[in-house]
């Protein structure tokens, strides 16, 4: 099964195709190169988003104006949110790891529509450029928050339209990626790989793909409606013309809630691959995890109103959305149980990917529990629009998806680049990141419940200690990120050569050389076992 490692295979990075030099990247249709195009662009924007976050934390170190005025602060949290949500967290895991590994893990040579795949990246870049332009052109960077609530987004004199167009184009990129992946899984699985022999990371991308395809268009049309409101005074959301601002919130969250499942499902998929490999035993409850992913995607459609409990929606609505919010937590809890049970009794190898995955469980659970506080209407009234919400979503998105992203980076790095990174630096980076992360966000739960509002540039002196701890945490986190990125970037070039299977994994990507060749497989594999088959002695199916 292993291709020979004596250098007779040509890595995809060295493959000589139709184009040379930079064009071999900009005009590639190789899913692996497209994945790297996304990786590099996303890492750059991630650091821009991180710097914006740090600037906000410096501002909040003391009450009153510290390094920027209130208007600038409003612009900061807006673009920080737009970058992090639309340019980083929604696209990253599908576009980077999905693109690279989905075809390989199902035994295919590429995705169903390779040219469409490249087009998705160009849409991503164009959307990101519009986001950047919104900061520098014309009337000033948008100050509406990434949520673009009306009436302010219809009235603000800043460059809201550029930001709306950016989000629209980025949404299109997301839709096309989801479409590509769904069709790929339907049509291109290797012989012998029935649906229930497909590994769980691809399954998570399948569930994610349906959300991308069915939810994103609604925010697309909603953003167009806001543009129509600004330019044509169309009136849908303007009470003076008979419209309803809360209708915007409904439309916006009908997408943006399922969007958080676009963010987290692939992350869950990644850690679901890591736990079996570093426990050297099959994943516990393959079927349960599979159906939980689909259940999260489906039920996640019907909970959007929990962002609107204080907006003036009906009592019946609040009851309905709160009830379903509690239901949607159940499949996630099932997964946590299954991940831990996967490790139980296994031969644990605590390499950096597993450490990140364990951190993921811890942080994701804190995020999840605090979500229940917000999902219950009575407690939400206290916590809504406070720093508590900010802490909650950073635990879930950054602690959850972000740490899953780092876990995936450390897991698949040897396969992608053919090099090994330094484990000591990886551990150091992960621990510094973990400490910094908790110091940054945990105090925000506390001051939030004490009354510190979110998106506020100024605050009462009683919140200062919490803010100062948080800011210090932010800098520690930043140092950890630098260590992690330095380790990976340096060793991508200078690291020791990686074997095809450094972690003794059993899914298809570990059966091919590191890095893979242009067409992934010398011969299309014939699948004979379930995906987490570690040999007869480990029992289980």
């Amino acid at each position, binding site marked *: 099964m292993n291709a020979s490692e004596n250098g007779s295979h040509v890595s995809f990075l060295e493959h000589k195709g139709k184009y040379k030099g930079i064009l071999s990247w900009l005009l590639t*249709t*190789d899913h692996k190169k497209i994945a790297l195009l996304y990786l590099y662009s996303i890492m750059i924007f991630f650091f821009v988003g991180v710097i914006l976050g740090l600037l906000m934390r410096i501002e909040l170190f003391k009450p009153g104006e510290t390094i920027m005025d209130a208007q600038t602060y409003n612009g900061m949290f807006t673009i920080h949110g737009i970058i992090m949500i639309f340019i980083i967290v929604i696209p990253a895991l599908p576009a980077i790891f999905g693109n690279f590994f989905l075809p390989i893990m199902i*035994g*295919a*040579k*590429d995705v*169903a*529509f*390779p040219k*469409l795949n490249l087009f998705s990246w160009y849409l991503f870049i164009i959307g990101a450029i519009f986001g950047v332009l919104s900061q520098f052109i014309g009337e000033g960077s948008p100050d509406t928050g990434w949520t673009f609530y009306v009436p302010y987004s219809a009235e603000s004199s800043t460059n809201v339209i550029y930001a709306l167009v950016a989000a629209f184009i980025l949404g299109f990129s997301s*839709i096309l990626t989801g*479409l*590509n992946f*769904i*069709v790929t899984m*339907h*049509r*291109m*699985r*290797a*012989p012998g*790989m*029935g649906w229930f022999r497909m590994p769980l990371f691809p399954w998570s991308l399948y569930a994610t793909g349906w959300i991308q*395809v*069915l*939810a*994103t*268009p*609604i925010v*697309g*049309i*909603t953003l*167009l*409606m806001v543009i*129509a409101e600004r330019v*044509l*005074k*169309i*009136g*849908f959301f303007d009470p003076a*013309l*008979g*419209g*309803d601002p809360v*209708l915007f919130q*409904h*439309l916006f969250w009908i997408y943006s809630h399922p969007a958080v499942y676009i963010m987290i499902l692939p992350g869950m998929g990644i850690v679901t691959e890591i736990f079996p490999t570093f426990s050297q035993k099959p994943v516990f409850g393959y079927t349960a995890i599979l159906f939980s992913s689909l259940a999260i995607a489906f039920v996640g459609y019907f909970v959007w109103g929990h962002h609107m409990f204080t907006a003036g929606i009906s009592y019946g609505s609040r009851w309905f959305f709160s009830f379903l919010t509690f239901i949607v937590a159940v499949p996630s809890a099932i997964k946590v149980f299954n991940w831990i049970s996967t490790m139980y009794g296994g031969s644990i190898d605590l390499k950096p990917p597993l450490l990140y995955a364990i951190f993921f469980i811890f942080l994701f659970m804190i995020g999840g529990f605090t979500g229940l506080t917000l999902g219950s209407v009575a407690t939400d009234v206290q916590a809504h629009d406070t720093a508590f919400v900010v802490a909650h979503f950073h635990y879930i998105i950054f602690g959850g998806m972000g740490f899953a992203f780092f876990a995936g980076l450390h897991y698949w790095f040897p396969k992608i680049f053919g090099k090994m990174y330094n484990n000591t630096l990886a551990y150091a980076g992960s621990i510094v990141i973990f400490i910094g992360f908790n110091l940054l966000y945990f105090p925000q739960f506390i001051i939030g419940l004490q009354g510190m509002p979110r998106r506020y540039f100024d605050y009462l002196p009683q919140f200062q200690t919490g803010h100062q701890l948080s800011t210090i945490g932010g800098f520690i986190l930043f140092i950890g990120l630098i260590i992690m990125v330095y380790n990976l970037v340096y060793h991508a070039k200078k690291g020791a050569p990686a074997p095809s299977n450094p972690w003794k994994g059993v899914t298809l990507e570990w059966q091919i050389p590191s890095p893979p060749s242009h*067409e992934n497989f010398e011969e*299309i594999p014939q699948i004979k076992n379930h995906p987490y088959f570690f040999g007869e002695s480990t029992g289980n199916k």
Partner: protein
Amino acid sequence: MKVPVTNSKNMSVQAIHNERIDSETGKLGMWIFLFTELFLFGGLFLVYAVFRAKYSADFHHAAEELNTFIGTLNTVFLLVSSMTVAMSITAIQKDDKKLALFLVGLTVLLAGLFMMNKYFEWSHKFEFKIYPGSEVLKNLPQGELLFFGLYYMMTGLHALHVLIGMILLLINIVKIKNGTVSSNHYLHLENSGLYWHLVDLIWIFLFPLLYLIT
């Protein structure tokens, strides 16, 4: 170059980048794209539903400004064009190139008539200063203002899709002529046909909701 592998259960088909995309794969891709279009328009239908419920009398009154005859005529144009494009696929399957070209051309012609009607409808309204943001609209009852906002946005977005559909069909005419689309490989025509039917479907919902609530 490896030969693509198909197994009898059609569970997996290996396609290589520079091979043609096989028809089932391409069709599935287009269906999923159509779902996204349904949800794109769906957002507007949701807004319509909310405001129709709130301002039913105003909507009823405003709809009387619309010309039911033209709306019905446009509906007929699109329904017939759906038939002609469906027939063109039968024609290409039967290797009747001439008939296929004629039917696709007829579809484009009917689409053009639809657009012409739309142009007359809209310019007639503009003459009476009925458009979003106008003084006339501001003086109308709120429900009527919203009705016209929805009318323009929904028919406008729909018209854009009619244009895109026309372009797709014109490309098919070129491809049928030069043999790229043939009885052996007509995915492009089939997918363009599906897209065209979607354009028709949306109009089938728009027509009664905008024109027939009098």
